[in-house]
């Protein structure tokens, strides 16, 4: 089966700092992949380049067989790739429902919407999937942090993407909220949603994903199942340092 996403030779430098060096990844339909690495490893830079927010210095990204490296972010969303943001930054002075209505007016969502279905009822469905339906009329700035994370996912899901990129979705969540989010991600995966998740919280991530990519100082150092990654010496050193005798 052809991959849904192919990344080859992606590199980016910010001045003298090499943020990403020759990154490559192949993703197939239905996969749930995790990207791990310490702070500053280049994880979010990958997402920003895949989704068009930053242009790479070299390399290319193919999505569903089409080269998307030079496309603008909104064009990539309308092709079927959606993302959340590391720093949850929604439309704070708008209601929860309005936050999810905005992507419902994207070109892709309008084409997908069944005739006669109102955008607010479609947005409500996505909110209910994330357990936020009862908060639909609340201003976003009044939401708890865990709810903001769920809302950001609902917003990203509203364009019915073929692939969903989640940037540190567990960051800042307590145990209860993390469990709710894990359940939501599991449900989406069971429905066949392809996802790539960047995460620091290894315990939450490794329970969910099928394959893990580890990045340190902009370079991919390991790729494999969660069990393989945990045993990989370079990953252990990156996270815990050299073993002391």
């Amino acid at each position, binding site marked *: 089966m052809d991959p849904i996403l192919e990344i080859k030779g992606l590199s980016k430098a910010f001045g003298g700092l090499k943020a990403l060096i020759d990154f490559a990844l192949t993703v197939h339909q239905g996969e749930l992949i995790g990207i791990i690495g310490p702070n500053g490893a280049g994880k979010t830079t990958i997402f920003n380049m895949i989704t068009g*927010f930053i242009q790479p210095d070299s390399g290319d990204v193919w999505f569903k067989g089409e080269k998307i490296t030079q496309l603008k972010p*909104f064009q990539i969303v309308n092709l079927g790739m959606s993302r959340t943001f590391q720093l949850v930054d929604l*439309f704070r002075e708008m209601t929860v429902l309005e936050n999810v209505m905005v*992507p419902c007016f994207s070109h892709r969502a309008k084409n997908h919407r069944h005739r006669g279905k109102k*955008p607010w009822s479609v947005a409500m469905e996505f909110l209910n999937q994330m357990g936020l339906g009862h908060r639909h009329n609340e201003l976003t700035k009044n939401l708890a942090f865990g709810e903001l994370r769920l809302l950001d996912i609902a917003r990203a899901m509203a364009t019915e993407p073929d692939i969903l990129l989640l940037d540190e979705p567990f960051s800042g969540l307590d145990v209860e909220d993390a469990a709710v989010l894990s359940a939501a991600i599991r449900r989406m995966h069971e429905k066949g949603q392809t996802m790539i998740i960047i995460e620091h919280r290894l315990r939450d991530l490794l329970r969910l994903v099928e394959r893990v990519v580890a990045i340190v100082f902009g370079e991919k150092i390991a790729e494999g199942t969660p069990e393989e990654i945990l045993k990989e010496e370079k990953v252990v050193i990156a996270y815990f340092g050299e073993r002391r005798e």
Partner: protein
Amino acid sequence: MANLEDLYGPRVYYKRLFGLLILSVSVLLAPIVVRDPYYLELLFLCHYYVILACSWDLLTGFTGNVNFGHAFFIGGAGFAGALLNLHVGWGPWLTLPIGGLVAALCGLLVGSFTLRLRGPYFAAVTFCFATLLYKWIMIRYEIFGGEEGLPGIDWLMETALGNYYFSGILMLAVISFLYLLSKSSFGLILRSIGENEIASEGSGINTTFYKIVAFMISAFMAGVAGAMYGHAQMHVGPEMAHDSLSALVLIMAVVGGMGSIIGPIMGAYLLTLVNESLRFMGEFRLLIYSSAVVAVILFAPKGLLDIITRGLRRVAGQETT
């Protein structure tokens, strides 16, 4: 749970247009009480500034892209309309829409290059375009009449009452259109751009397209108002393209409350009437007027509409969210 149809369906428009109905009736019936041509001309000015302030608010108030050169469209269309009237003989029923279209095309040209960019570039370029137009008008005095401008333009309507009703109906049409637009999906998208353009783009919205369209609509309405003003005064002058007019429009929208359409209506009426009522103070008028504006901005930075809305909510016993 509130009915979504009530919150977002067509019924929400019917409720909100009730206020517009009150304003419409007031505009239509006011001349029964106000008969003096001086006051009718003053109210004409109010209508004119409402159109300018509301049209400015559509882009800046909603998307946050600050237009420092609204006078470019007002003066540009005013002079375009005047030249068409004087040299080609077209009357206001043609010069007004054409003036608006010329302004909209200028908006497309300016916006296409600058609204793609984030940062102060758009604000700087709009200021520069207005300044360039003003200088050009002053330099090419053989075309534009220099400091004296162009007199002898055909009237808009024969009487002050006619001008009042023409401008009033135009104002009501503009307000209705802009208000309905602001509450539509187009308005929602503009608000999302103003709140967080990156998240809006990340939601699949072509933010540049929407900003350019908003800018063109804003420019068209300012252009129509500029051409209307020229015909009503039977004269156009370089002050219509001066940056002080851009600043005045901005102040009216800010004082009233940006991003609401209703706020600029309040700001335009209030500042026009206050400015006129202070005329008896002579040279102190500008000092008092400016001090009052600064005081409002300091103590009510979100504008008077915000103060009134919060006050009404407090009286009604609702939580302020």
